[in-house]
């Protein structure tokens, strides 16, 4: 038990237990001792990671930036070793009702824009950053209405974006922000009735979650973990239901260049500065 590689993740949904229990079994059958610890929020996970409580972390993009910046300040090094194929090259969109007369992002001046949870990269930070870049400062040039479902989970729970979309349909707000897949998905499930909305703006591309390791991680086991992870095949009936639950077809090598948009947004809004400073102090 003691030599198992321990991963930390956030319990944003009960299915998380099914997923990691399943992966644990799969790793065990491949002679690899793997265990996991669940945290209720990403800040707790990032902090625990720097305290050495876990060997690697399944991080949201915001948690990745928190880890990267804390590492920088504390003279440590963070690395993204793997990610889901479905987490690459995402975009978010800003949507208005088609009958609202709002034709472009510029028309949002003086209006109300619904976003997801305050710490959601896709539902809030990146789209608000996009509007700010376009010259519309949130909370001064337009009103921001936040749908804070499960704060600390960095928007992993779809509820905030869905509530924002529903508020748009009900006419309570003038626009709503959501990840591109949710635009498709909300259309499919009927939350956004077909033809009732129009896309005002689409953000640039960004990446989502990754497996993060710090410089003191056990290199051999991390190496083996990564090899096994990348070898998981959607053809394998044992692992396929877990990949379906976790929403991917294939694990890919990690990359970090596409966190730039989020980095830009949080620099502008100062979203994680205080947290980074505090944890960096204790991580030195």
């Amino acid at each position, binding site marked *: 038990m003691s030599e198992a590689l321990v991963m930390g993740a956030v319990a944003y949904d009960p299915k998380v237990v099914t997923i990691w229990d399943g992966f644990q079994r799969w790793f065990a059958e491949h002679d690899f001792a793997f265990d996991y610890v669940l945290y209720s929020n990403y800040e707790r996970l990032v902090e625990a990671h720097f305290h050495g409580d876990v060997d690697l972390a399944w991080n949201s993009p915001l948690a990745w930036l928190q880890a990267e910046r804390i590492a920088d300040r504390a003279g440590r090094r963070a690395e993204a070793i793997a990610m889901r194929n*479905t987490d*690459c090259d995402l975009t978010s969109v800003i949507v208005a009702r088609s009958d609202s007369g709002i034709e472009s992002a510029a028309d949002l001046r003086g209006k109300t824009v619904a976003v997801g949870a305050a710490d959601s990269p896709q539902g809030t930070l990146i789209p608000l950053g996009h509007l700010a870049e376009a010259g519309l400062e949130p909370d001064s040039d337009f009103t921001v209405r936040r749908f804070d479902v499960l704060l600390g989970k960095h928007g992993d729970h779809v509820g905030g974006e869905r509530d924002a979309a529903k508020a748009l349909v009900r006419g309570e707000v003038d626009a709503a922000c959501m990840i591109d897949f949710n635009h*498709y998905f909300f*259309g*499919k499930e009927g939350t*956004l009735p077909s033809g009732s909305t*129009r896309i005002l703006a*689409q953000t640039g591309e960004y990446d989502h979650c990754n497996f993060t390791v710090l410089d003191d991680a056990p290199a051999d086991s991390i190496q083996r973990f990564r090899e096994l992870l990348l070898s998981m095949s959607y053809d394998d009936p044992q692992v396929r239901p877990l990949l379906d639950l976790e929403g991917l*077809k*294939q694990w890919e090598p990690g990359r970090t260049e596409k966190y730039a948009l989020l980095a830009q947004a949080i620099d502008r809004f100062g979203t994680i500065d205080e947290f980074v400073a505090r944890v960096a102090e204790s991580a030195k």
Partner: protein
Amino acid sequence: MIVVDLRDLGLDRGGHLLVKRALGRSAAGDAVAVRGSAPGLAVDLKAWCRSQGHEVEADDGGWKVRRSATADGRWRRAEATGDPSAVVDDAPAHWGLAARGATVEAGAPAFDFPLHTRDAIWADEAAALYAQAAAAQWDPATAIPWQTPIDLPDEVEDAIVQILTYLIENETAALVVPARFAAQVHPHFREVMQLLAIQAADEARHIEVFTRRALLRRSRLALSTVGGQASLKTLVDEADFALASFLLSVLGEGSFLNLLRFLHEHAPDPVTQAVMRLTAQDEARHVAFGIAHLTRHVEADPGFLTRLASAVERRHDALAETAGLNEEVFDALVLLAAGAWQPEAIERGWDAVQTLQRAMEDGRRQRLVRIGFAADAAAALSALHTRNFM
């Protein structure tokens, strides 16, 4: 290259079906050209492709979608659940609830259906018996002349209500037993599962019509004895399908067939008469299935006869200290056949019930012989059958 023109159809209104169809006709790695003018198509197409693992790139005012190699993964190791028109010897747990002749994805959960072998449950007659049962379903509301006035002497009416009270608890056992086993049969053997289900439905109807007839002229039902329920409990408690089916259908329902025909013959009113005729018709099917699959079972494994015999002996021993048939029921049968209180009439009734019991005995012996018992063994076993009839 296949070209799909969605025109103004978006992915929010089913456009993905056309893209999927085109991808399905192309080899993995091959590109499909997608065109379309729906607002939001660029966003939705990219998001949908990402979730499916397909690659997408903008191309000449439209998009080029490359089919993912994982697209076929789900069905690569899929398995056929046999032939729709033939059953296998042993149905695997992971075929689960899938239809016979379907294709199941590998990795499906294993279901616990204890009755999964052909030898344990199958009878070639199951499909025909099920079809017959489905065709012979009758509507209690219209099949029975409930409106016919009934005016029987009090004692005759009481006798009828006592007999019906007894019948209802027996029918309840006859519902509970197949209902429980229906849920244990591997759905691969769907004709057996269906037959057990419709058998349970038959019994539900029997309980209904017996109850309704009993309450036509009375506000309460009659007596239920320890001996009667103890006898039925040994049936309900029998955990083995073949043994339960043997005790219930071949011996119990077989005897009931004689009883229902007797009641039909001696019914003092048209409602009771119709009720007995219709229920007997259903019982004949229940008996036929029990005989069919047990005959098959014995053919496959002659040693099985020993187990059947010892089940009867065990049940006899378990019931040795109980009273057997409710005396009230026995007397009610005599009175019904007598039709009057004159000593000659009672004697006639008594004789009729003796004849009924001999008919039951003969019937049981014949059915035991049908299954494969030698004549003397059949006679000995029949004599050990519960005095409660069922």
